[in-house]
């Protein structure tokens, strides 16, 4: 491109309004893609949740019956509330990744030889896919040869079939999920710790702050941005949990490890049937729960933006 066209249409309508039009031209392809694949499907799912549809034939309008079925559990006994309860457990337990990540970050925030490699290797679990994490932990829990039971056996505890026990299974899966999530939080905090103001630490030391008090009053306030991001990714990750459940238990035993994300998939797109409308209703419930958090995140970001 030469500079000539630029000068030639200096007075054209396009040139005069360039700064108004340009952003829309730059946005057009991105917005188009995003609208077609993300924004519009959200509304379509809302609409679909009012229908009964097997994915092939004609859809039949049923009003809010899908939601009634969920609320009273008329279709699948003990599925919806079990999923909801497990989602809550996921949410609460998954947050442990944040203090655990901070703890490891504090442990690794040193300058000894080879520490960079250690940091990378601790980060490792986050990079591998959840499918592999799921497989690895399924074998870890295996009642006949799993490492867990070998260790328990060494201290005289009889073997436990974690993934076969209705009361333990969700915790077992969450523990597997915490592994990569902790690594993620760790790296956030390591970066945050790098940027902590050394003068404030020195000032704190002079004032006699040490250890936990120093951490609480001087370090953590400066790590706020890292903590915020850790909260966002951990909460979203907890509510999105699907891969691990699908790989490790398929929702079992007896549906006791289902969460909404998995239950929805099971209902709409597995061998148990193609109840698309009913699945959409579950998705809407999950969406509303997540929207509560998303709104809060956006609100925080908005206040931050205005602060500039």
């Amino acid at each position, binding site marked *: *491109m030469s500079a000539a066209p*630029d000068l030639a249409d*200096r007075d054209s309508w396009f040139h005069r309004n*360039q*700064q108004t039009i*340009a*952003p829309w031209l*730059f*946005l057009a392809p*991105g*917005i188009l893609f*995003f609208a*077609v*694949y993300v*924004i519009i*499907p*959200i509304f379509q*799912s809302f609409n679909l949740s009012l229908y009964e549809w097997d*994915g092939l034939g004609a859809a039949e309008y049923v009003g809010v019956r899908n939601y009634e079925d969920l609320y009273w559990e008329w279709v699948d006994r003990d599925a919806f509330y079990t999923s909801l309860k497990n989602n809550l457990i996921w949410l609460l337990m998954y947050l442990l990744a944040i203090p655990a990540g901070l703890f490891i970050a*504090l442990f690794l925030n*040193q*300058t*000894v030889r080879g520490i960079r490699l250690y940091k*990378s*290797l601790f980060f490792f*679990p986050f*990079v*591998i*896919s*959840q*499918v592999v994490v799921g*497989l690895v932990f399924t*074998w870890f829990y295996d009642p006949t*040869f799993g*490492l867990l039971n070998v260790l328990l056996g060494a201290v005289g505890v009889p073997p436990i079939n974690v993934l076969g026990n209705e009361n333990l299974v969700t915790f077992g899966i969450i523990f597997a999920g915490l592994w990569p999530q902790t690594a993620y939080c760790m*790296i*956030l905090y390591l*970066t*945050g*710790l790098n*940027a*902590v103001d050394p003068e404030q*630490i020195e000032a704190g030391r002079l004032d006699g702050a040490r250890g936990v008090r120093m951490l609480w009053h001087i370090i953590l306030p400066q790590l706020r*941005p890292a903590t915020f991001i850790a909260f*966002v990714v951990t909460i979203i990750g907890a*509510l*999105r949990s699907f891969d691990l459940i699908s790989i490790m238990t398929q929702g079992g035993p007896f549906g006791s490890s289902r969460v909404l*994300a998995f239950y*929805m*998939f099971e209902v709409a*797109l597995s061998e148990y049937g193609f109840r698309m409308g009913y*699945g*959409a209703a579950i*998705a*809407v419930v*999950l*969406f509303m729960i997540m929207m509560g958090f*998303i709104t809060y*995140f956006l609100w925080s970001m908005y206040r931050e*933006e205005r602060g500039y």
Partner: protein
Amino acid sequence: MFPTPIAKQSRGAQITYQAMLPLALILWLAPLLAVALFSVKPAADFTTANYWGWPSSFDGVANYGKVFLQSDMPRYLLNSVLITVPTVIGAVALSCMTGFALGVYRFRANLWIFFMFVAGNFVPFQILMVPVRDLTLGLGLYNTKTGLVLFHIAFQTGFCTLFMRNFIRALPFELIEAARVEGVSEWRIFWFVVLPLMRPAIAALSVLIFTFIWNDYFWAVVLTQGAESQPVTAGITSFNAQFRAAYHLMSAGSIVAALPPVAMFFLMQKHFIAGLTLGAVK
């Protein structure tokens, strides 16, 4: 620095720390090390219940050879590459433009469009599942890599826009203003002034998206089936069905499936961490 540098502490503390580091690491990676050990054991060890003992022979070459020569694994790996690479290019290209538009121009809808991208990036996949599957079926792209790529590009644009926009906001705005005073057109400002400065962001985002897409499982299951189009995350389940109870082969397969993002991470570590933690510090 916090906590107090170990170099400033007693000799005993230093030795304890140095000893604890490898121990903690082994403990942390134990589940993975176990799989690595399994993957070099011969089948006989599993029938004789020698799960955790020393391998009776090292069959790593044979096991990994089988994964590559007697299964669909190479096919799945190739599919993963053919899905991941176009997605990275597409999503980064789109978000360079959206990020530029939202980072540089002041117009009323700016923040709303930005929030639309951010919010969309956080929604549960399930709310998109049925309509996106229908759309893909309607386009005749069900069970094709293209169908998966198109969706991934669209969805990743949300996160990428967030990332790019914040990066561009941090660039010196005077550069753009100076170019405008010179009469440079907006497109050329984008191409010649801003894009060269975005290189680190593009690198960081590329490795990040590579990992995200390579590790995707949900959409692979929803939009594809069968070896001709499934990526390795979905393929590994069929692989495991083929080698049911052959733990040495399943372990080797898992390691092969997990390796590419790991390699990517180690090669591009600096960019990867820069990408992941953008915004974690001010």
